């Protein structure tokens, strides 16, 4: 059964210099429990697609289904969590209180799903002992870990991540990729992950959807399920290099289409 089904979606933005077609006839089907990576050149609308799935952006045309219902229903049922490029932690709240935030709003109690323990989640993202720290005392990587813990506290069925590690250095990013993969294997949640980093896509993706720009559209979906070992792939292996090169070629093809 598919977790997310998008078909025929168009999104047009009106700007001062005329309308811009951000998404054109997008179709994608993401099975339940899959780690799906969206990759593409800047301006291809990968973030917009993520925002359409999260009900943050209404499509002009087409249909979006999240677990068989519309995105608004999934959002109200609190089945969706979103991780932004900036951690967007509330600076007046301690780390643990930031993780608790989703449980304090949006009629969480009436959802009737048990939440995860905020302290346990902080342990999971490697921040135990920092519960009462203030966000400004944390590094960029640590802040993003808190944002991930906050996203997981409601046990979401879909985790949408919009270039969450885009502002981090390479080493921090690789470490967080390792942890993200562990979290995915551990929770079994469906993840849609937007990035413009090829190694990140190759490392994380179970399937990688390549998009093209102007207008934003789907170019190709590459299934890596049989290609990679279960769990983390060795980044220095020939296989990893092969997958990354393969993705690069697809991306170049997509850009050539523009």
């Amino acid at each position, binding site marked *: 059964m598919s977790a997310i089904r998008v078909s025929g979606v168009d999104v047009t933005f009106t700007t001062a210099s005329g309308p811009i077609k951000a998404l054109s006839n997008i179709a994608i089907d993401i099975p339940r429990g899959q780690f799906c990576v969206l990759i593409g050149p800047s301006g291809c609308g990968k973030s917009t697609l993520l925002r359409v799935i999260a009900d943050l952006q209404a499509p002009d045309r087409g249909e979006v289904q999240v677990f068989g219902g519309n995105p608004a229903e999934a959002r109200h049922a609190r089945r969706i969590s979103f991780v*932004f490029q900036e951690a967007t932690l*509330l*600076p*007046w709240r301690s780390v643990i209180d930031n993780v608790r935030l989703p449980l304090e*709003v*949006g009629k969480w109690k009436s959802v009737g799903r048990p939440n995860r323990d905020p302290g346990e989640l902080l342990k999971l993202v490697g921040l135990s002992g920092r519960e009462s720290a*203030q*966000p*400004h005392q944390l590094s960029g990587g640590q802040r993003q870990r808190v944002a991930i813990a906050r996203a997981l506290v409601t046990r979401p069925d879909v985790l949408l991540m919009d270039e969450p590690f885009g502002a981090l250095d390479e080493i921090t990013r690789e470490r967080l990729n390792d942890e993200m993969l562990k979290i995915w294997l551990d929770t079994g949640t469906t993840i849609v992950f937007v990035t413009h980093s090829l190694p990140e896509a190759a490392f994380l993706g179970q399937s990688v959807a390549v998009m093209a720009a102007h207008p934003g559209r789907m170019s190709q979906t590459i299934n890596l399920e049989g290609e990679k070992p279960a769990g983390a792939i060795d980044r220095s292996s020939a296989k990893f290099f092969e997958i990354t090169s393969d993705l690069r070629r697809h991306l170049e093809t997509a850009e050539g289409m523009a």
Partner: protein
Amino acid sequence: MMTILRPIIGLSSLVLAWALAVWLFNVPNYISPGPLGVAKAFGTNFTVLFKNFVPTAQAAIGGFLIGNFAAICIATVFVHWNRVREIYLPVAVFFNTIPIIALAPVLILIFGLGITSKIMVSAIVCFFPMLVNMIRGFQSVSPSELELMRVMSASRREVFFKLRLPRSVPFLFAALRISATASVIGAIVAEWIGAELGLGVLIIQTTFDYRTELLYAAIATSSLLALTMFTIVVAAETFIVRWRTS
């Protein structure tokens, strides 16, 4: 320690220069007394000063509380209903262009010579800076913060109390610092126009009577009132705002 000591050195040097100028140029007492004379006037006129201090303090504190509270409430309405803001904010801006000294007589005509009109003048002086600051404060949330709240299906009420209100706290205190001193100005202006008792009345009377030492003591007392209110605001701010924006 030095941060407290340095302004004290600054103030002392000015007082010393004042004493020196009065002595050097042999300034007559009715034009400007020396600091010692003023200090003495504090002692001999303590009862008069205190009797006039109380109504001014009441008016300033009353106006401070009412003006700021009203401004926060209206800013809350403005931030939730854009149409209401578009209709009434320009009107508020227009009223703010009327000098308070021109508005005060009107208020005294309406509310009489009692404390009500003084509180009203003081409240109006506090109102506008708070209104403008709180609108900006409530709007200082980032788009991604609003999107975060939306993904969590937060209600408007939750967005306000969990996000907009805490975000606006630095703006709140910026406005409170302004109105802490402005409220005293408002009360004294109202007392100039017409009142029976108060530091403003005392300032006018002593000026006309050439009781300069008591005049200076009254000025110092009003400054002390404003300074006390300002200090309370700053203390509250350091106690409440412990977080920093990145």
